[in-house]
């Protein structure tokens, strides 16, 4: 991982967090349709990024968003979850090719199946957020 990559990641963290916090926080359609664009930080990480680094980046982004949403830990937890699941799948399913890789993943190895999980991550993230939030509102936490 060279300096350029690190700078790119830092920029993406800042830009997506600002976008989330200042613009999309106010765009909640009918009080139910949320938009969590900040998980793009994790989804667009270079595929060569080790899982530990991804976890830490996800945690930082999540905590930054949480600070503005007044939900300490909630988005961080969901984002860390995404970053962890990301590590369980083969690297080729990610959108950003590493050095020397060809950008051939869009078709997937066996039809759409291989690429399918990437599309599921936002769903998974939203589920995490809503389940955690629901349990928080219902005071399942001590």
């Amino acid at each position, binding site marked *: 991982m060279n300096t350029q990559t690190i700078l790119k990641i830092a920029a993406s963290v800042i830009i997506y967090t600002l976008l989330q916090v200042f613009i999309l926080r106010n765009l909640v359609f009918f009080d139910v349709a949320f938009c969590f664009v900040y998980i793009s930080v994790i989804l667009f990480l270079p595929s060569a990024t080790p899982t530990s680094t991804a*976890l830490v980046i996800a945690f930082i982004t999540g905590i930054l968003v949480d600070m503005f949403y007044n*939900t300490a830990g909630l988005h961080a937890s969901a984002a860390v979850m995404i970053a962890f699941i990301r590590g369980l799948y083969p690297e080729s399913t990610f959108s950003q090719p590493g050095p020397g890789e060809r950008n051939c993943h869009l078709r997937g190895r066996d039809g759409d199946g291989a690429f399918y999980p990437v599309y599921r991550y936002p769903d998974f993230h939203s589920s995490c957020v809503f389940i955690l939030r629901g349990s928080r509102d219902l005071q399942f936490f001590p």
Partner: protein
Amino acid sequence: MSQLLGILYKSRHFFLFLALQIICFYLMSKNNVYWDVSFFNTTNSVVARSLEVSQKANEFVNLGKVNNRLADENAALRKQLTDLQERSTGIPGYHPDSLKVQRFEYTVAKVVGSTHNLTDNFVTIDKGTDDGVRAGMGVISPQGVVGQVAYANKNYSRVYSILHSRQMVSAEVLNRKLRENNTVALGIAKWDGTNPQYVRLNTVDRFKPVAKGDSVVTSLQNPIFPPHVMVGRISEVSNTSSEAFHNISVRLSTDFSGLIYVYVVKNKLIESQQEVETNPGIK
């Protein structure tokens, strides 16, 4: 032992994940119960300040909406105020009918055009017959009297400004001496066509005590305007001994060059009052 360490090393990602999740859940439970996490929420000064900036931008965008809402609220409050004033006349033995007390209604309108430097000045407003505006209704602004509706079509109305050669407003002077003597100094406010900031108050009896600085308001005998709406303040009083009336100049309280919102006043009983006043059967 080394195998155990090897397993631990292999699953280091999982342990990091676990640690971070534990931190998250700790924060969540703490935030939920005590409300005392001072760093990871919006009371953090950096966060609070940036939220303030975004809130200010929001406010700026919403100013128009807020203006409309305030104007509506003002109209409602004005209605309540007139109702209350009408109810408490302070005259013993006189109990006004509730229908009469609530005869004035207000409609908020936005000024879309106005003149104030011609001989006959008009104000154009964005409410018409669709909103219940009819010719003859009074128009007031938050500062004071504006005029009377001259013509209304479906969506817009044209208003005779008080700065019009044919527009007159029945007015009275308010001061303590008049109140103590229990009299009213009635007059007719009319523009003389010179300075758009001043109108003349004619036909005020010269034996009535009026002085510079007294308020001039719409009178109780006025079917178009609610009583005691500000017209202006007396800026000059003069009379020669041979005249029957004071020569009064009134500085208007309404700024006609800066009109934004006005209220159209609807008197629900005006027809019945006019019917009584102009009944052809009585000579």
